[in-house]
């Protein structure tokens, strides 16, 4: 470690911008009557999601886990109370480290009873627009107008959102319908689009692995730079905790959406599944996938299932990666530039 390795890897300007972002997010929810809540970071239960890893700790002799998201606990509050709630907390994910990943990161998550996915997307767009315009106007203030003729108007960009379905994005860019495709078709599409085929990804692999590869290599890179993009209506196999309904072509889709800025994934939301039995089946299926992949079986959160049985109100919820959002607002290329002490300095 170098001599000044104790110092924050985020600049003072960015630390200030983080404080301002948090303040404005709280003001946004305060104005709308959404209540701030806190739920445990440390739990007896671990994730069942085969693509996430819970970090393990220990209390006395009992193993316990750092949460990968506050979703289950927040839904327990929602089942008991039925009020709009939000939380800003840390989430932890094993084996996630890179330019856009830190194993400990800050998440904003909120739930709105009676909202469908579209209504929550609109609220998210409103929040992001406010934060973006503020960041842009601060940037404009710092410019010396005595020495430049740049008119203020060009700096106060109007915020643009694109919006398209997962299916449309794949048809436009890859040329396949993701709800009907096979692994073999994805392989052909990867070949004809001249992208590398990862070692270990074969024709017998799950279709979702192939779709994820095409998504990261072709679909997301085609999103417009310097602009927000919503993608919605995911394949049912990627439903996670979302409701499944039919789209206009009568094809079942997961009511799940994500928000991107350029290629940066910022948020993931659901029109939430409220059926306890269906949820339990999904967890069990995920655990089977974990075992097949040689991973530990997740500990299903029984309290969460019990809360669903007692009745979760119809609602939508979304999680926003605030470190990534700050990267966008501060135009930072690496997550280490926006976190005071990222992994390696923590």
């Amino acid at each position, binding site marked *: 470690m170098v001599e000044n390795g104790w110092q924050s890897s985020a600049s003072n300007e960015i630390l200030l911008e983080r404080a301002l972002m948090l303040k404005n997010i709280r003001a946004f929810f305060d104005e709308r009557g959404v209540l701030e809540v806190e739920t445990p970071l440390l739990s007896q239960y671990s994730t069942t999601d085969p*693509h996430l890893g819970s970090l393990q700790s220990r209390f006395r002799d009992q193993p316990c886990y750092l949460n990968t998201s506050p979703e289950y606990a927040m839904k327990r509050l929602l089942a008991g109370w039925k009020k709009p709630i939000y939380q800003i907390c840390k989430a932890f994910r094993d084996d*996630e480290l890179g330019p856009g990943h830190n194993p400990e990161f800050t998440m904003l998550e909120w739930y709105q009873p009676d909202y469908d996915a579209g209504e929550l997307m609109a609220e998210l767009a409103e929040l992001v627009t406010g934060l973006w315009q503020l960041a842009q106007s601060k940037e404009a203030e710092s410019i010396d107008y005595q020495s430049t003729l740049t008119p203020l108007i060009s700096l106060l960009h109007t915020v643009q959102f694109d919006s398209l379905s997962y299916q449309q994005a794949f048809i436009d860019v890859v040329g396949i319908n993701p709800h009907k495709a096979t692994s073999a078709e994805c392989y052909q599409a990867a070949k004809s689009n001249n992208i590398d085929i990862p*070692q270990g990804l074969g024709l017998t692999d799950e279709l979702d692995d192939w779709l994820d590869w095409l*998504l990261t290599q072709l679909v997301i890179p085609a999103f417009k730079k310097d602009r927000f993009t919503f993608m919605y209506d995911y394949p049912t196999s990627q439903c996670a905790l979302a409701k499944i309904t039919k789209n206009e072509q009568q094809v079942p889709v997961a009511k799940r959406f994500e928000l991107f800025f350029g290629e940066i994934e910022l948020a993931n939301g659901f029109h939430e599944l409220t059926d306890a039995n269906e949820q339990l089946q999904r967890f069990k299926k995920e655990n089977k996938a974990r075992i097949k992949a040689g991973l530990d079986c997740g500990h299903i959160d029984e309290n969460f299932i019990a809360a669903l049985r007692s009745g979760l109100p119809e609602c939508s919820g979304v999680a926003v990666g605030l470190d990534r959002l700050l990267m966008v607002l501060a135009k930072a290329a690496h997550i280490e530039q926006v976190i005071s002490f990222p992994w390696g300095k923590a």
Partner: protein
Amino acid sequence: MATYSTNQFKNGLKIIMDNDPCSITENIMVKPGKGQAFNRVKMKNLKTGRVLERTFKSTESVEAADVDEMNVEYLYSDGEYWHFMDPTSFEQYAADAVAVGDTAKWIKGQEVCVMTLWNSSPISIAAPNFVELAVAQTDPGLKGDTAQGATKPATLETGSEVKVPLFINEGDVLKIDTRTGEYVSRA
């Protein structure tokens, strides 16, 4: 057979790729929030020096390469092999022309080189960054030619040719940067 999983990948890790030993120079995770993770990896082929880029589905395993690096002293060449010695164990190693490569142009004996071994056989030899070699042949510089930066070719005692300033004479000992193959100064 030792293997590494993608979550053990880091810079400098030695793996077998396309039957050759490679050293990882960059490892970036590609992962949709709720989806399958992949690793985009850049690596250097330790035999050819070529850089290749590959992607892996995460949790995929690859074969580990048994690669060592050690300092060795150059002894002599018999025309087919170049012979080196580990100065601590006195163990000798014979490297072929492929392993020695361009390094042969810069060594005459007693230089300390870095040898890379794969499964205990030499696969590459790196010359010291700077070597001192005598000029075997060069034309005399023209009297009165004072043009700045003017050079002439000179053949060194190892047979390699470098561009040198006009004032260099046969028998002068020169300092050469082996990474660029350029004259630095008189030694």
